[in-house]
C-alpha cells in the first residue's frame, strides 16, 4: 500500500505539491491525471525515492521510501527521461538492474525482447526515441517489482507495444498483485488501463475515485416544464450547470440517474431526457465546479 500524508514539495519558492493526501491499495491500477506541471511526476519521483518531500510522509507499506534501499528495490520507475542510459547497451542495462532488483527475471526480459527484438549490443543513444522507451519498459517489467510507476506511460510506444505492455500488466496484476501508477494527460488511456484515478491541479489533489463510479455520476438533463422554471426550482438537487433556452432547460446534475429522475418527475415535465456524462465530460465539469480552468486537461 502506498500512502502520502499531507505531502508538500517545494522547489525554491515553487510549491509542486501542496498538501497531498493519497492512499493507493495493493493491486490497484492507479491513474494520475492532470495538466502539465500539476505535480504528477513529482509524486512518482517521491515514490521512487528520487526526491525527498519538504513536509509530510511518503510511505510504502508503512515505511518511508527516501533513503530506504529495501523499499526502493520494490519500486521501478519508468521515467520519461532516458538520457542517463545513453552509453549503455541493453545487455548492460540488464546486468545493471539485475544487481539492484532481487526478483529480476531474465525469462521475462528475453520473452519481451523476443517480441520487440531490440538489438542487445547497440548503445542506447543510437536508438530512436521509441526504441529507448521500449528498452526501459522491457527492463522495468523484467525487474518484477511490487510497484511499477509509469510516467507518461504510453507515450512513444507504438500500438503493438501498447498491447504487449497492457497484457504484461494484466499478468503481473493477477500473478503478483502488482500495483501500477500511471501518470498521463490522456483520459482514454487511463480509462482503459486503470480502475482508480486521481486528478491533480496545481499541486493539489482535486479528487480520487473509482473510475466506474465516476462514470454515470453526473447527468445531463434536457427538459421542458409546464410552468416557467428558474435555477431556484432545482435547489434540492446538486446542480453544476443551468442553462435555459426559451422553454427548454439544460441542466447538469450530480447524482444517481434514478434519484434525479424521480425528483424531476415531481415537477411534471413535458419532456425529460437524461444521459450520463462521458468520463471526459465528468472531469471537465468537476474541474469547473471547483472553479478551475479546465482547458489544460483535455
Amino acid at each position: 500500500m502506498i500512502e502520502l500524508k499531507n505531502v508538500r514539495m517545494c522547489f525554491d519558492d515553487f510549491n509542486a505539491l501542496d498538501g497531498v493526501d493519497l492512499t493507493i491499495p495493493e493491486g490497484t491500477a492507479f491513474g494520475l491525471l492532470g495538466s502539465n506541471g500539476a505535480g504528477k511526476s513529482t509524486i512518482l519521483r517521491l515514490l521512487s525515492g528520487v526526491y525527498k518531500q519538504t513536509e509530510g510522509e511518503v510511505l510504502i507499506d508503512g515505511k518511508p521510501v527516501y533513503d530506504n534501499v529495501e523499499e526502493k528495490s520494490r519500486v521501478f520507475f519508468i521515467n520519461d527521461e532516458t538520457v542517463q542510459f545513453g552509453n549503455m547497451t541493453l545487455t548492460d542495462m540488464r546486468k545493471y538492474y539485475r544487481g539492484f532488483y532481487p526478483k529480476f527475471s531474465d525469462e521475462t526480459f528475453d520473452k519481451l525482447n523476443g517480441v520487440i527484438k531490440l538489438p542487445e549490443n547497440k548503445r542506447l543513444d543510437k536508438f530512436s526515441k521509441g526504441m529507448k522507451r521500449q528498452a526501459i519498459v522491457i527492463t522495468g517489467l523484467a525487474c518484477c517489482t511490487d510497484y511499477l510507476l509509469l510516467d507518461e506511460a504510453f507515450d512513444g510506444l507504438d500500438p503493438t507495444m501498447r498491447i504487449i505492455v497492457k497484457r504484461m500488466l494484466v499478468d503481473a496484476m493477477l500473478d503478483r498483485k502488482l500495483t501500477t501508477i500511471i501518470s498521463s494527460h490522456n483520459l482514454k488511456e487511463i480509462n482503459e488501463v486503470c480502475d482508480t484515478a486521481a486528478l491533480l491541479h496545481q499541486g493539489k489533489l482535486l479528487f480520487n475515485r473509482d473510475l466506474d463510479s465516476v462514470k454515470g455520476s453526473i447527468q445531463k438533463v434536457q427538459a421542458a416544464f409546464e410552468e416557467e422554471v428558474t435555477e431556484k426550482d432545482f435547489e434540492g438537487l446538486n446542480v453544476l450547470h443551468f442553462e435555459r433556452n426559451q422553454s427548454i432547460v439544460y441542466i447538469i446534475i450530480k447524482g444517481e440517474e434514478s434519484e434525479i429522475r424521480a425528483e424531476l418527475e415531481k415537477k411534471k415535465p413535458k419532456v425529460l431526457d437524461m444521459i450520463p456524462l462521458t468520463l471526459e465530460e465528468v472531469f471537465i465539469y468537476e474541474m469547473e465546479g471547483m472553479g478551475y480552468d479546465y482547458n489544460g486537461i483535455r
Partner: protein
Amino acid sequence: MYTIDLQSRTPIYEQLYKKVVELILKDELKAGDKLPSVRELAKSLGVNPNTVSKAFQLLERDKVIYSLAGRGSFVSEINADSVKEKALADFDNAAAEALKAGLTRRELIERLDGGVKAGENHEQTS
C-alpha cells in the same frame, strides 16, 4: 464474442455483465458452459483485470454464473428465467417512461413490432 465499447458512457464492468447476460439469452452460452478466465478476457479486451473481476463477482452474486475454485466460472442452470424476468422488468420501466413522455400504446406496439423484426434479423445474421 465478448465485445465492449471503451468509449461508452456505461462502465466497462457493466457492459461485460450485460454482454454475458445477452449471450445467455441468445443461447450462445448454455448452462454449464465455461466462461473465459479473467486473465483471458482482460488481455483480449485490453482492460484492467480488476474490472473484469468486478463483472464476474456481480454475475456470481446474481447467480448468473458460478465459479469452482481452480477450474473457472460457469453459466448457472437456473439463470434463464431470472434473466428473462429482469429483462421484462426493464421493459416495463421503459414502457412506463415512454407512456409518461406522451407516446401512445399503439405507437409502442408498432415500435415493438419494428424492433422485434430487427432483432430477429440480427439473430439470423449472427
